[in-house]
């Protein structure tokens, strides 16, 4: 298989902060809102450089979402940022009515998603956010895998008209995608070709999928790895093309199995191209305090789990 290298480990939230600043430089209609987590979301550079376009909302997320919807009337492009738990579950109805149903050009920017938030524990570790957001008609759902891709995605969504949910996280992870790679919303990225099985991964689990494929290569198993950075709209064409070749599927994500990426891919395949599928995801449980790596291991969303899932799915092929 291809060799994947990286120079440094970086957090995806910093990719968001850098992308937001770039988007703000490019387009003066870009405005940013934050609910008292400016530092955590790395929005400081934008706030410092464009103070008139940065709106501090305090710890009041419902109002932040409504305000963001209102800002679009007159042409602003609001990026509303907070932790994923407060950006989705806490404000679901505000997003549903004022943003999604009203088709407002709001970018909901959600950091500290999933287990890798770590020590703060289950109150903050939302694992349901992708499911909540993808159920909303018209909502685009994006979960990039590293710093470079998150930065590119942030810039790309500023140029897209319509509601978007952008999910990223806290831990430093290998920054391996090419710098300045163009981000195309809804276009899955084939990272490596393989013949025995396709691993569809999203977010932080993309690097884990690469690690798993390296281990599996030693066992003479050839994995195709596809980075699904956009969960909605799903790149059906790329997925069906790959599965028609490999005829076996593993999905990997730092999210609940119900409502996640695996759920979307299983829906597609069961309708159009039935194939054995195994899902690496959190299975109907809340998280807890711990280090990110400890949590990924304990909740069965680690490299080893992808390896086992591939071995299991190949037995069903």
């Amino acid at each position: 298989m291809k060799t994947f290298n990286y120079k440094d480990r970086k957090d995806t939230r910093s990719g968001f902060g850098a992308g937001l600043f770039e988007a703000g430089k490019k387009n003066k209609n870009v405005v940013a809102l934050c609910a008292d987590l400016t530092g955590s979301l790395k929005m400081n550079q934008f706030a410092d450089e464009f103070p008139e376009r940065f709106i501090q909302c305090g710890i009041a997320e419902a109002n932040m979402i409504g305000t963001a919807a209102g800002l679009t009337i007159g042409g602003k492009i609001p990026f509303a940022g907070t932790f994923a738990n407060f950006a989705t579950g806490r404000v679901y109805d505000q997003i549903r009515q004022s943003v999604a149903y009203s088709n407002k050009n709001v970018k909901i920017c959600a950091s500290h998603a999933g287990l890798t938030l770590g020590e703060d524990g289950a109150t903050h570790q939302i694992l349901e956010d992708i499911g909540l957001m993808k159920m909303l008609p018209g909502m685009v759902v994006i979960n990039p895998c590293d710093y470079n891709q998150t930065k590119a995605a942030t810039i790309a969504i500023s140029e897209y008209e319509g509601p978007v949910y952008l999910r990223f996280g806290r831990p430093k992870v290998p920054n391996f995608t090419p710098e300045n790679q163009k981000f195309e919303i809804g276009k899955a990225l084939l990272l490596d070709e393989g013949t025995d099985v396709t691993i569809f991964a999203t977010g932080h689990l993309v690097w884990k999928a690469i690690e798993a494929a390296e281990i599996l290569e030693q066992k003479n198993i050839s994995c195709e790895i596809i980075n699904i950075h956009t969960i909605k709209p799903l790149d059906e064409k790329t997925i069906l093309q790959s599965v028609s070749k490999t005829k076996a599927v593993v999905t990997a994500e730092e999210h609940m199995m119900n409502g996640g990426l695996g759920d979307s891919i299983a829906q597609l395949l069961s309708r159009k191209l039935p194939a054995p599928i195994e899902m690496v995801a959190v299975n109907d449980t809340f998280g807890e305090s711990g280090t990110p790596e400890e949590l990924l291991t304990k909740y069965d969303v680690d490299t080893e789990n992808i390896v086992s899932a591939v071995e299991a799915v190949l037995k069903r092929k």
Partner: protein
Amino acid sequence: MSDTQNLKQIASQVRRDIVRMVHAQNSGHPGGSLGCADFLTSLYFEIMDYDPKNFDMDAKDQDVFFLSNGHLSALWYSVLARSGAFETKELSTFRTLNSRLQGHPATKENLPGIRVASGSLGQGLSVACGTAITKKLNNDPHIVYTLHGDGELQEGQIWEAALFAAHHKIDNLIATVDFNGQQIDGPVDDIMTLGNLTAKWESFGWKVLEMDGNNMADVVKTLNHAKTLTGNDKPIVILMKTEMGMGVDFMMGSHKWHGVAPNDEQLQTALNQLEETLGDY
């Protein structure tokens, strides 16, 4: 100045529209709609600076109104149609399948005049704050208006927005509260009392005005006065006393007509009390 006689005539027709629309589909919210008919008529026909016939979602260089208590949709649709936003005959499609006149206001069907969906309560003040900030960023000196129910003030988001508007000195915003003292389950004071609303809003940093929402002259005078108070670093709220069901005697003084349609006989009784001034749709 204003010709309140003309406004009263329009409001009478709007009230006819409301009861006819709600009756036709046996569905809707006549009580609050009738109570706020004088206010919304004044706003659209006297107070706001906008072009009714050329709807612009971005509301560039014009005043904006958001109906936060979206169940007053029959009232809003009637006022929009009577102001020329769309044909009055479309009012007959209210709450029917494939209509642009959804049960609660929506943007999906591109009905001129609607900029955000409402119905789930408590969200309109936040939206208005956002649009008011955009107007400031765009150096557009126009005003953002809202209407809320008093029961709606039980939603926490309203008070988040109240803090936010005062903190950010959103002084191009005039919110109005329909203070009719009624909500679905009964009198507001029995369900969840709001206490001293004037003191509450003042303590949040707002300029508070009061008016009689069923006295057209007072409505016009107070709204014009509110306009003169914009630009002074403070958001403005008007506590508007109204009578739910105003204009139709058997609908007044009770919460019972919040979300109930009149039957054929009741419709006739209601229409007998409301002069047809502009021609029924």
